[in-house]
């Protein structure tokens, strides 16, 4: 097996790993690097559970080859909270009970972060279209939308 050596930045930290040519970023994050916050739902790009940021752009980690990530910057769910505590998006998901089983939650939080960086005060339609690639089979989405709206308000107009 011809393993490839890759150096990339994950949540601001330089990380080196070996991967196989056909391995996805998702496999390497979870199985090689033990960063299991990023979830595997479908592994075909349909569910968004593995959403991460690559150079600031929202992508599915299951549809990126690990071998492609050399020299790029990856942000995962583990990079959202700070030492000071939860990110406001995470806090609002808790307050609004915008999760039940939790498998979709890391992807939704990462996708919401990307949304609010691009559209700080999105209307409901914008939120729903942006998050259309993040499937949740528990909540029915309304609590998620309310959490995102509340997080947007707090980030745009801090108390």
């Amino acid at each position, binding site marked *: 097996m011809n393993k490839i050596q890759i150096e990339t930045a994950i949540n601001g930290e330089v990380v080196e790993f070996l991967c*196989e040519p056909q391995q996805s970023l998702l496999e390497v994050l979870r199985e090689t690097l033990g960063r299991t916050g990023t979830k595997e739902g479908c592994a075909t790009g349909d569910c968004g559970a593995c*959403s991460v940021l690559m150079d600031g*752009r929202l992508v599915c980690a299951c549809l990126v*080859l690990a071998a492609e990530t050399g020299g790029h910057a990856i942000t995962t769910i583990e990079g959202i909270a700070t030492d000071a505590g939860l990110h406001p998006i995470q806090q609002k998901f808790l307050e609004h009970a915008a999760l039940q089983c939790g498998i979709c939650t890391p992807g939704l939080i990462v996708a919401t972060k990307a949304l609010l960086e691009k559209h700080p005060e999105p209307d409901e339609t914008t939120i729903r279209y942006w998050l259309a690639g993040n499937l949740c089979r528990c909540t029915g989405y309304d609590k998620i939308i309310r959490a995102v709206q509340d997080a947007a308000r707090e980030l745009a107009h801090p108390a």
Partner: protein
Amino acid sequence: MGGFSYAAPGSVDEVVTLLGEHARAGRRAQVLAGGTDLLVQMRGVDRTPRTIVDIKGVAETGTLRLDGAEIFIGAAIPSAVLNDHAELAALFPGLLESADLIGSTQIQGRASLGGNLCNASPAGDTIPALIATGARTVIAGPAGRRELPVEDFVVGVGRNALAAGEFLVGLKLARPAPGTADAYLRFTPRTEMDIAVAGCGVSVTLDTNGVCTAARIGIGAVAPRALLVPAAGQALVGTRIDDAALAAAGAACSAAASPITDKRGTADYRRTIIAVLCRRAAATARDRARGAGA
């Protein structure tokens, strides 16, 4: 599973050399752009080992050039990058409508026009939209470069015109003449995250009196490959794109369609709805063209 390898050449020549070596040795190589089709296929229907040739390291495949009479769109530019580009959106609103319909925000962060075209799905949304704009493919291979109109690039279901050792570098589009605008419309049961039951791309040019002087219409998901429908375009030329002209163009699209019946729709339904999509997309293109200098 052994036998996979990954290569990221830095130039067009290196890609062509690598593809050529594989072709001569009878080894499989496949070009990777955004990977949103390729990686899914590699885990599902087509698991055979191969060399994955990532072309994103080739600067030209990521180049967007808007100065000059000819616009160039690199084959591997993610659609999210294109959709964020206000100047490109002003030139080709219909093309970007088609790119913006494909997949989720996450998919659009990776998926490219070049990939959608090479994947050659009958339902690929950008293909009829590209046909409407008159886009040409720029192909690099062992014999140098060649160009092919988009309508001749897709040759069948999942099959394109690339020969062994060739790859798609990008797309060339003529800068729209004054009074020109495009539009793309598809039908899906859902508003998002779905695959076209039928789709229609239209580009029209109006003179200062509002009379149509040129029109190109592409249809998708109603034949084994997306088609240019010259008769539909001809039905608009010389008219003010009134209801009678729209009806004639729509009828020409229905006549050109050879749809199948599948879980997304019956052949009869597709043949009917492609006329509706054509009429509506052409009316949108006309209204946009009126605002674009006509």
